[in-house]
């Protein structure tokens, strides 16, 4: 299992490699969605949240809050990869997931721009 800092480092590297301007611990505040995102590019509205007990994320990100974030992602308003520390076993696995997520984001953003 990865620690908060290990997981965030892998994700930040992958997102930056894809061209995103990642801000650490960005304070996201829109309507009822208010939380500190581990890595977020406010310009493209793309980021990631590595959820760990160590960082107290389970208190801040309640199931209701995650539901609201997913709703916004489904509407194409923002793209945040939510990763629970218990769902990944290694840095390599996390990197693969991040890269695939970013591919999907690219497709969706392109589709959004065309529309």
């Amino acid at each position, binding site marked *: 299992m990865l620690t908060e800092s290990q997981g965030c480092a892998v994700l930040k590297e992958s997102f930056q490699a894809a061209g995103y301007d990642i801000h650490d611990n960005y304070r996201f505040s829109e309507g009822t969605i208010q939380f500190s995102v581990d890595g977020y590019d406010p310009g493209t509205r793309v980021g990631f949240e590595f959820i760990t007990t160590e960082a107290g994320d389970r208190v801040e990100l309640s199931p209701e809050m995650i539901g609201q974030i*997913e709703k916004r992602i489904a509407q194409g308003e923002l793209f945040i*990869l939510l990763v629970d520390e218990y769902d990944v076993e290694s840095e390599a696995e996390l990197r*693969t997931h991040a890269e695939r997520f970013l591919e999907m984001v690219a497709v969706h953003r392109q589709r959004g721009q065309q529309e």
Partner: protein
Amino acid sequence: MAEMISREAYLAAAEATKDKLQTTLRQLEHQQTDSRREVSSLVSRTETALSELAAAILADVSPESVDAAVALTGCRTLAMVNPATELTKAQTKLKEQLAERSQQISARTADISELPIFQNRLLLRAPRTGTLVREITELEEFREPLAQVLQKAAHPRLQRLLDVEYGLPSYSVPFWRLSYFADWKAGDEIVAGFGGNKTFAEIRSEYLSARDGVGVYDQKLSKLRAEVAQGEAVEREYDLLQTEKLAMSESRHPLQAQLARMPEQFLKDARIQLERYLADLDLVMIGDRLQTVPQLDVMAKRYFGLRKQTEYLRQTSSQLLDNTRPAIEQSLARLQRDIAKYQRPKYAGNRFDRDQFQKLGDRNKRCLDLMGRHRQAQQVIVSFHGYEHGRLDEDFLWWDLVTDGQLKANYIDEVARFRALHPAYKYRRPKKRPAGEELDEDGVEFLDDDGDAAVAVIQTSDSFFTNHRTDFS
């Protein structure tokens, strides 16, 4: 007038007396242990003599032997639950069981012989050629390639991929959930297992088809294997019945063995009953009847004598050793307390009475005397073997025979009671039998009973050597 001594002289004398008492106590403990060992040995010899006596009285469990044993001993237990009758009943019952079992074997063997799964056993289950065997082999061959598909597709996430319809247009897991990527990864791994040339949808279809096929084959195989197992079980049962039948014909059947052991077992149990009865019985009660069977009379006297020896030694140890010990222990404890007390400086100028050491010395000497008496009594009791000179009647004191009338022991209940009931009694020592000669009419000689004779002194007469085996030299 009492002689007074200084504290130093007092303490020195006290230490010396303490050492003597401690030595005596150690000797006493040693003698008690030795005595317990001798009692235990006598108990063991008594038990053996009792077993031998019971075996001689009840030679077998025939009705005649049991009746004779009851008549001789008056053992009502044997009369009420007669082992001869019980044996006959048990033998009859067991023979009936044997006959019943024999019938069961014949009936079941005949039933099995009629069963098609038994009659056609070779046709159905012969290795390689039996129809069931061949059918199973064929189905296993058909099943194998399908099983290989299942094996290739095996993956911890496979069932989830099937459930969420991964690879199909209906797959609906959103890409921002991590499970989307885990599904993706697992799907890729499964596809790789099939060589990488098929889509997951194709593999899914192949897998589901193989799974259904394997399910059908497994059901058929399970039914065929159950049929084979049932047939094999019947064959095993048949073989076991045949083995049992053979054992019966050769008299090796467990029930037959049990039947053969039965008289011996009943005899053993009956003898145990008789032993219990005799152990609680004062043999004097049946002494006149035993006298009519000389061989039994000798054995009964031996057993009775050993019983007496055991009791005499027990009481001698209790009276002369066990009862003496507390006095020595108390004296020793008192002396140790006094030594500790008078060592303190405040008693430096005190004067002490010397007489108290004389008293303690006397007590120690009395104890040593009693121990000496015990040693001699034990030696005499344990070495006694002249049982044939004893009598099983009211007017006979075994103590005198055991000790050849040389030891006085009113501390033994039986001796004290006997002397009270027979004030004119004099011990009649059995006469020494000269080589090749018969005894006189009564075969005894009178011995003056000197009631005041020193009890610790043992005279070694000829008679004593006749009745005792220990070497006193």
